Structure formats: C-alpha cells, structure tokens
C-alpha cells in the first residue's frame, strides 16, 4: 500500500508539473526580428519596436506622432514573442539579411510581396496575422508648392477620367510578368522635373536591371509629364537618401507613403510639400524565408 501511495504521489506530481509546464510555455519568449526599409528619421529601431511591443502586450491604443495608433499584434496562438526591428537602406539589403537569417521577416506592401513571391521560390508570406492598414502614397516636393498644386490638378483630372485607376489596375493589381519600360514625351523648351526613383517597391517603385525605371510610378510620371507639358528625368536614388536628395535639390520630386491620411500635413514645417494621395494600400506583408 505504501508503495502504491508513493507511486500515486509521484504520478500526481508529474501531472501537475506537466500541466503547469504547459501553461508556463505560453510565457516563454521568442524574438522575432522584422526588417523594414526606411530612412531613420524620427524614430530609432528600438523606439519603434518598444512601441509595437508595448501595444501588443497591453492591447492599448497609443499615441504616435499625436495620432491614435491602434496597434495590437496578433501573434500565433501558441506562442509569445517580442519584436525587434532592423532598418535597411534598400530592398536588396533587406532581402540579403533575410537570406542570411539576420531578420525573421521582411516588411513590405502587398504588391511588392506578391511581386517577390511570384519570382522567388524560397520565400513565403509570413505567419504573422496583422490587421490591414490604410497607407497612402504621395509625391513630395521641396519649397515648390506651385509645382505641387499643378500636380494636384493633374491628379484630380486623372482620377475623374479614370486614368489613375486604370494605371493602378495595370501595374499594381494585375501586373504582368514583365514590366514594360515606360516612354516619356519630351517638350521642346519646357522645364525638366527630376524625380527620384529607388526601385525598392516593385512593381510600384521599380528599376530594371539595366537601370531603366519602369512600373507604376514611372507610368504615373509619364502621364503627369504629358498633362503638365514638362520633361521628366528619372534619377536612381537609394531609399535611405531619398529625402536628402529632395532637400538638397538633387531631385525635384520624390515618392512617400504615410499612414493616417487624415493626419497628414501636406505643407510641412520642414519645407516639404505633399501632393494629394494617388494611391491607398490595405495590406503590408511579412515575407519570410522558407525553411
């Protein structure tokens, strides 16, 4: 009998430990390193990660740049994790880091994710389930509200006559396997607008291997050039140097994207003016390396 009771006690202990270990494992931490392409302007990697982690833990609405941020992350159900962020200057750098295992997931807009997934068998869409967010895309100008206003007029016309939506369908929604280069019309004696292109957001911001720009932004610029009767010159610029290229006058126009359309200040204190948004995006994906 005594032996039996000891065995019983042992079994009970085992069960209790097993059960509590199971519930304890829900609290074990896993670190997920995410990459994003950005110029490190207002926030460091640690600051961004801290905000994302805090909002995840508490599910609270936060204020970020005086904007309400509903930032609750939905992790895989059976795991707990902590986010770290790494910034990269270009898509190529970020993908190399992904390949080398330095990051777990590479963040990018849906159209870029789909573009890469269609061309890379060794990538997959990430396991994270985030909510979709409405991101808006703008053209940026520096101390040139006049050009910005002319661009806005052309954009409104393109929206109203369906051109903008058609370009979007062709280049972003149903993009072809090969993106044909876009032709620009030239205007004798007209001004030349230099636009910075990075190639980091195919098929929107896209540069061919031979360096020639293609894709949605280029098509949009070509149409704008026609309507404004200006010449367009494309400059290839690193993502991390985009804003500098604008503020130093190397480029007259750059492309930006921002969350929170209603909070965007289109005439900024730093001299940058933004056009009306020309595109809105629902989803950002995490691209991961297949095991």
């Amino acid at each position, binding site marked *: 009998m005594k032996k039996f009771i000891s065995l019983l006690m042992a079994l009970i202990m085992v069960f209790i430990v097993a059960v509590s270990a199971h519930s304890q494992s829900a609290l074990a931490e896993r670190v997920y390193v995410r990459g994003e392409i950005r*110029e490190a302007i207002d926030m460091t990697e640690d600051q961004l990660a801290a905000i994302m982690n805090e909002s995840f833990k508490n599910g609270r609405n936060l204020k970020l740049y005086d904007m309400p941020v509903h930032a609750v*992350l939905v992790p895989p159900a059976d795991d707990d994790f902590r986010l770290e962020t790494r910034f990269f200057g270009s898509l190529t750098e970020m993908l190399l880091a992904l390949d080398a295992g330095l990051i777990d997931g590479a963040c990018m807009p849906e159209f870029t994710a789909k573009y890469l997934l269609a061309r890379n068998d060794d990538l997959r869409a990430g396991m994270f389930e985030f909510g979709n967010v*409405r991101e808006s895309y703008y053209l940026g100008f520096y101390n040139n509200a006049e050009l910005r206003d002319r661009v806005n007029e052309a954009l409104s016309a393109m929206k109203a006559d369906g051109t903008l939506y058609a370009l979007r369908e062709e280049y972003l929604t149903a993009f072809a396997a090969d993106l044909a280069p876009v032709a620009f019309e030239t205007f004798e004696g007209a001004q030349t607008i230099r636009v910075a292109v990075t190639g980091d957001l195919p098929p929107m911001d896209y540069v061919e291997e031979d360096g020639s720009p293609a894709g949605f932004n280029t098509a949009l610029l070509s149409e704008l050039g026609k309507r404004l009767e200006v010449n367009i010159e494309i400059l290839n610029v690193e993502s991390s140097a985009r804003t500098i290229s604008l503020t130093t006058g190397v480029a007259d126009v750059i492309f930006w994207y921002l969350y929170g*359309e209603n909070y965007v200040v289109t005439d900024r204190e730093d001299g940058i003016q933004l056009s009306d948004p020309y595109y809105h995006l629902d989803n950002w994906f995490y691209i991961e390396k297949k095991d």
Partner: protein
Amino acid sequence: MKKLVFLTLSVLIALSLALCAFAENGLTGEPPEAPPPAKTAGTLSLLNMTEEEYAVFVEARMRAGDRMIREGYAEVQEGALNAPPEGEPPQGESPEGAPQGEPPKGAMPKGDRGKVVYYDTLDALLMALNAGNIDSIEIFQSVARYLCATNDNLRMGVSYDTDGTMNAFARLIQGGINGNDFAFLMLEDHVALRDEFNAAIADMKADGTLDRLVREQIDDLIDGGEISPVELPRFDGAETIRVAVTGALPPMDYVAADGTPAGFNTAVLAEIGRRTGKNIELAVVDSLGRAAALASGTVDAVFWTRTSDTAREIAAMTEAEQESTAAALEADMTEEEVRLIRSLGERIDFAAYGTSDMPEGTVTTDSYFSDVFVPVELAVSGQQ
C-alpha cells in the same frame, strides 16, 4: 488492488485532461472557439428600413467597421455585442510607413447578419430590449446618446465621430450607408412652401443657427441639461403650418409630457417659422400615421428621417458625371475598399435610397440634420 489502481489512474488522467483544458482556456482567459449566435436587433418602423436594407447595413458595418475604428471614425465599447470582430489592428505612423500584414483568418463571422424586428414606438423598443427579446436597438446616434445619458442600464455599442474630415471610403459609408439626413416631407402641391423652407434652412446653415440649435437642443441636453421649451412664433393673420410630431426620436422628435413644444426639430421649425413669417402648430401623431395625416391634410408637413443628400446628388447627375464621380472616388480608395463598396452597391440602389420610401405625391425639403445609426445595448452591471 488492481481495481484501485485502475480507478486512480483513470481519475488522474481525467483530472489532467481537465486541467489541460482549463490551462488552455481558464488560465489564459480565452473563450473556446465558437461562432457567435445570430443577434436580433430592434428598430423603429418609422425608419422605413427594409429587411434587405438592414442585412446590407449589418454587412457593411461588419466589413467596414474595423477599418472605421482603426482610422478613428468610430469607437467601440469593450465587450459590445455589435463590435466588429477583433484581432485586426494595425499600426503606427512613421514618415515612411510601417509593418502590417494579412487579416487574421476567421476574423469575419460568416452569415451572421442577425435578424431585425420592427417596433412602432420607442417605448415598445426599449421594453423589448429590457425583456431580452432583442439583443440591441439600432437607432440614430443622437437618440442613442440621449437614451444612454438618461438610462443607466443602456450603453452604446459603437459610437461614430461625425465631425472630422473623412476619406472617400468613410464618406461613402457614413453618408451613403450608415447615415440618414433629416428633412420635412410635404405634399407635392405645397412645393412653394417647401421652397420657402429650403431658403430658411440654407440661411440657417450659413449663419450658424443650425449649429447653435444642435448644440443647445441636442449636445447640451445630452451632457446633462434640461429639455427647454421652445417658443413657437405667432404672427397675426399669417398662414399656420401644422407639423406632425411623434415623440419617437428624442431629443429631436420630442413630445413633452405636458404637451409643451420642445426638442430639436421643434426648435428648427420655430426658427423656420420666424424666418418665413408663418405660424407653426404641432400635432402629435402616431409614427405609423404620419403619411396618412399628411395625405389627408390633417398636417402640412412631417419630419422625415430618411432622406439622403448623397443619394440626391447622385440622382441629379448625368450618367457621365456619375461615372466620373465613381472613378474619382475609387481612385481615392484601396482595392479592398473598392471591392466592398462595389459589392454593397450591387445590393442597394444608392441613388434611390433617399426617395424609395417616400409616399406617392410628396416632396422633401433640403436636409437640416444628419445622423448615423448605432447599436444600443443593455449595459452589463459595472460597465457603462
């Protein structure tokens, strides 16, 4: 002995399985996965919302709701029954954009449109909610705010910010689907009177009178003020306009217990009366009897809560203008928003929404007020 061992082992196994299940659910506090049961909502018959319209409305709210919340147009009460499904949130602003991803699988409960039941009076609606016959009330936000401010046992499920600037998608949802505009309904013969009312309403909008009346008669009241009586104008020898009130939509369509004229609609009418030089007389009418009272000439005008400025604008456009407007709106929306608006548009005729329930031979004034529908639920004790 063997029996004892066997018995003990089975008890232990059962216990540990139970503990595991408890650990899964109880310790982490997560409820078991089960689709929520279909909800029943009650609404007022006078709102003239058909069942199909209600179904589309619920679908629109579900599919657009989470986005409206994230972008700050709506706020949901924790635990609210009608809250859009959770688990879909996004994230921070940065000058460059930020990380997000696919929506969680299974986030949208399928087929849970719920039922709608119609009630003729506000009292009947509230009684049904209190009795548990319905899960929520769908009513205008101003009415909801008023009811929740005056009844501790009620709370709003979702509230909308109707003041700020809205993107194209939010404007379509708020203006086209989620909201109605208020106007006065009259017989066609009285189109001259209607035009006089329109002129007065336009002036009241331009000079801030309408804003003031909204503040005084709706906002201040909800914030704890008292219903103040409205002085109706008296002009000797002038025409008298009789208007039907039902009391079904306080604090807009409000009937005081002692019959003194009060409420926002009455205040607007009094102001119109002053500006058009006409006497105003109120007649309390059953909400279902409004159209008949108008047709029979018992009253000259009736409060009508189902007009839509958006619909009216669309209906006034040529086909080319409509296409161009639609194209411009779509260019300002994301792919998912475009898909959602298109699929909702296939089920409701936007252009006809504001006029489809008008009785034969009637016309409406321009709108003097707009409001959106919100759900009102019983407050669980301890929450408000």
